[in-house]
């Protein structure tokens, strides 16, 4: 198991290299540059060149990449051109809000989704299943920002139970968590339900019934364990999403976070900040997938024993 984990970590090095290339160059595909955002109207071409030189933007892209990479390896993400502050400080200020919402949404959607999936699978083909499947369909089609606005209207404006917006205190986290988690619930519930139904068709489940075990024990102690394998896969893919995917939710609820930071940086063509944010998100996706792989290997006795 430890050997397996180490091997996966070593494999991350080339991945990291490719990711850094993409992250660095992709912003340069977008027209415009940060200097336009710094110059006042009517500035002379000389001033423009001066600023370009100051941030190293006058050198070739390849040169710029190696400078950036060199700093990166020593732990320096550079300085925001527009805001004039270290990128790492800006990320550090926004990350906790993203983490808070991301973890809350992930937990909420995982627990609710698995529960809904298990219930739907256990009552497959009955009205209970129809109702849950209906909600799943609804949940995967309703846009989260629209649901966010609806929630604000009902629970903040009309009922006044929670704050309309902002990120102060746990009560301000409730509505964004529901809005951001809804799509996840639908996804997790759907995968859980299908995996449970597929597993139930296997011979070993027939034999468990032939032993006279009560159906709910079979579902929870045996079938669910097998069904969790694909659920872990989709959850691990969502870890990265959770950090950066809540941009619209951050907008609707006026919350700070990595998503909003990235969008603002993109609009201003703030190259170092965009690159820093993208790198963070990419790493989150990669680490999420890695955690998923490790958990899966730990769940499957075949992989666990062979790779021990």
């Amino acid at each position, binding site marked *: 198991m430890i050997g397996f984990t180490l091997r996966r970590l070593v494999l991350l090095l080339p991945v990291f290299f490719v990711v850094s290339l993409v992250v660095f160059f992709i912003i340069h595909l977008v027209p415009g540059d940060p200097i336009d955002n710094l110059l006042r109207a009517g500035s002379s071409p000389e001033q423009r060149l001066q600023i370009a030189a100051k941030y190293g933007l006058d050198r070739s892209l390849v040169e710029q990449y190696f400078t950036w990479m060199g700093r990166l390896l020593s732990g320096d993400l550079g300085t925001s051109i527009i805001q004039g502050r270290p990128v790492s400080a800006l990320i550090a200020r926004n990350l906790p809000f993203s983490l808070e919402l991301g973890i809350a949404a992930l937990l909420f959607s995982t627990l609710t989704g698995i529960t809904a999936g298990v219930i739907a699978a256990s009552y497959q083909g009955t009205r209970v299943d129809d109702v849950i499947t209906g909600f799943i369909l609804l949940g995967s089609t309703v846009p989260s920002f629209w649901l966010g606005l609806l929630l604000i209207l009902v629970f903040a404006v009309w009922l006044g139970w929670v704050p309309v917006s902002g990120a102060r205190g746990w009560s301000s986290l409730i509505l964004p968590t529901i809005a951001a988690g809804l799509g996840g619930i639908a996804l997790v519930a759907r995968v859980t339900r299908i995996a449970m139904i597929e597993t139930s068709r296997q011979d070993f489940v027939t034999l468990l019934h032939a032993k006279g075990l009560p159906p709910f024990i079979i579902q929870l102690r045996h079938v669910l*364990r097998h069904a969790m394998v694909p659920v872990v896969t989709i959850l691990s893919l969502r870890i990265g999403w959770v950090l950066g995917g809540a941009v619209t939710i951050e907008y609707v609820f006026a919350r700070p976070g990595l998503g909003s930071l990235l969008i603002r940086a993109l609009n201003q063509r703030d190259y170092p900040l965009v690159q820093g944010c993208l790198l963070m998100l990419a790493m989150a996706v990669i680490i999420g997938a890695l955690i998923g792989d490790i958990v899966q290997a730990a769940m499957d006795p075949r992989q666990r024993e062979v790779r021990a």
Partner: protein
Amino acid sequence: MLLDLEMLRIRFGAFSPVDQVTLSVDRGQILGIVGESGSGKSLTATAIMGLLPRIGGQVAAGTIRFDGTDLVGLPEREMRRLRGGRIALITQNPMTSLDSMMRIGPQIDQAARLHLGLSRSAARARSLELMADLRIPDPASVYDLFPHQLSGGMKQRIVIAMALAGDPELLIADEPTTALDVTVQAQIVQILVDLARQRGLGLILITHDMGVVAQACDRVAVMYCGRVVELAEVDALFEHPRHPYTQALIRCIPRHDMARGTMSAIPGIVPSAAAQPPGCRFNPRCARVADRCRVEIPELRVGASGNGVACHVAEAA
């Protein structure tokens, strides 16, 4: 009689893949059920286990009398007490019959804890004893292994141990050797025969293999297209098969003294469940077919001896 099925009919919606199944087995007795693929052997076993609703079927007619009680219509709660307790099942493929994510031992313990009310440690002791009885080497370490660490033959022994854990009186083995190597097949059949003889279990042995029937069984039910077509003692069946289908089956058994290439197969194919011919279902393939066979379904008539045949021509003879 330990188990007595009378004119059992199984229904999936409007479709009845199994009909007119009559058979019985006593304690210490081995009943073989033979028939080609799709003849309804597994569905009959599933009906006895009370597991038809799980796959969307139900018993439409007939009785399943176990030790005097009709299991048809028995409340699920009571059926569950019998299942894995007094009636146990062994399925075809040991590769897929065990929970691959759970250690071997606890899977055997389950039935003993559930039906005999044993504690964790008492169930473990019982499982180790059963494993030793089934000649599984080093039971204590096998107990802690996962299924993928065992060979097919060993896994099938584990499945048998699992079935025995609840101390059954009736054991249904649905093609218990089909998925195994030839050398292992004979061992598994021998284990099952010994269980019936030594523990006095009633054993239903479902198989395609007439050789296994001849070697192991006391009585045989021959099934064709969802119906029992002949019911007889094993010696009588092999010496004087009465139903033309049984006769054809026995002609198909390869023997050492046969010249190469003379092995006969029954001409024609099994009709699909949706396209059954009118009258006797065997009539398109039968060598002795008469006019009557194409219109009238022959009923299985069981005599006082418990033997019977469902054929217009054989009955008249």
